[in-house]
């Protein structure tokens, strides 16, 4: 993307404004914003793959892709309009840099397992509410049992699961054979430390990024 100027974290509010039309944006109102920023700014390499399973509320994703010069900034203006490549749920065939079309919850982790089986390092972002969908657990169980070390699941936890996760999300992943770590979902250094690639991993990794309840 040599023709595009990349922007910084502080430019994200202005990009979000272009997407939504709202004048003021508090970054804290976007549960996934910091995780996405750290992934694209500090973690993901050329050959890595990122799949956004939680396709609801993708404005933070589009803003980060725009800041990184992957999505043209001009594309943000028509968000959700008939001719826009950026909709309320991402379409990989329309939006540059989007590697998974999502919106129906519980699909990304299974696709991520398939991609990771080839040895490709894969990061997949899901929400704590999304984990209600049983299909996630098919992926969690299988990846854990076969020791799929190339896979990282990032669970953005804003306590939005209606019935909650008694005794914690991480216990469920650990029981199935994953490593699990809970970090402050606004702390960039902590996120980076938890998310950086680990080529020697013999187990899939779950990073729970905790953000304030919505």
């Amino acid at each position, binding site marked *: 993307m040599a023709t595009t100027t990349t922007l910084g974290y502080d430019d994200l509010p202005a990009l979000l404004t272009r997407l939504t039309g709202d004048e003021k944006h508090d970054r804290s109102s976007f549960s996934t914003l910091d995780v996405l920023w750290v992934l694209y700014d500090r973690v993901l390499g050329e050959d890595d*793959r990122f799949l956004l399973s939680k396709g609801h509320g993708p404005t933070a994703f589009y803003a980060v892709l725009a800041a990184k010069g992957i999505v043209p900034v001009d594309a943000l203006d028509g968000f959700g309009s008939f001719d826009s490549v950026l909709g309320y749920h991402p*379409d*990989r*065939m329309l939006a540059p840099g989007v*590697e*998974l*079309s999502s919106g*129906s919850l*519980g*699909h990304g*982790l*299974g*696709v*991520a*397992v*398939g*991609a*990771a*089986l*080839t040895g*490709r390092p*894969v990061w997949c972002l899901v929400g704590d509410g999304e984990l209600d969908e*049983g*299909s996630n657990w*098919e*992926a969690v*169980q*299988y990846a854990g049992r076969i020791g799929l070390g190339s896979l990282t699941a990032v669970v953005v936890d804003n306590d939005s699961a209606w019935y909650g996760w008694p005794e914690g999300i991480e216990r469920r992943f650990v029981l199935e054979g994953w490593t699990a770590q809970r970090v402050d979902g606004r702390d960039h250094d902590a996120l980076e430390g938890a998310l950086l690639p680990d080529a020697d991993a013999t187990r899939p990794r779950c990073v729970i990024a905790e953000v304030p309840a919505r």
Partner: protein
Amino acid sequence: MTGMRERFYELVREALDENDRVAVVTAQIGNDSIGEHPRHFDVGIREQLMIGVAAGLALEGYRPVAHSYTPFLVERPWEFLKLDLGHNDLGAVLVSTGASYDAARSGRTHQAPEDVALVAALPGWTIHVPGHPEELDPLFRRSLAGDGRVYIRMSEEENHARVDGGGFTVLRHGSAGAPLIVAVGPTLRPVLEATASRDVSVAYLATVRPFPYEGVQDALGTGTDVVLVEPYQAGTSVAEIAVALRDRPHRLLALGVPNAEFRRYGTGAEHRAAHGLDATGVARSLDEFLGVTD
């Protein structure tokens, strides 16, 4: 004589050995026959994951083959066919076994006459319904060589011999204006028996999507009467016939498995007869629709 399913397992083993692009995903079926291979992934009894994993493999450039029993390959993970494969524009070859009622004695849970209608409701799928084990070879090889979304519906029912010539073949030409009987996959055998002494054209259809509109138009010629015989839900391809013949008056009879909770066990042959899809039943329907001949 090798049945279609056994032939499929042979072809899968060959494909895994010969083609680095091929990967196979199963959900607790055929493991003894396929055997262990670094690119054979059995995900346990997890059919949604089976389709998701196939999509992920396709995302990485592989040609995934997903295989299970018909209801568990198509019906249970249907939204995953729609989204993980279709909406993401990722290719895969799905191969089912069990057809409509091969496992009749297992009951409704293992009977899946809706499968072709369900796959056909999604855009862009190629659907093959081979009627003989030897037809599987070229269909499967061609499917592996492409990168689209393909559904191959295997069946224990089979015709006397394979039919060459691609997806749509006119096997018998009636007199000018004679009715056209379109026999899909393994229905050819009862159709040939039922029409032996009738002045009709008989066409064999093994690739039902994309539908051979021109083939049907040409085979019907100046005729007006069409009988479609499908081994799955009756009427599944009626809309395709309507499109093929949209600019000419015609009469259409669609035979197949009724859309009903049948609640019978027994054998495939008993189901075939009960649904009027054996030679006697087809002949009876032709008598009613076309008039009695002798």
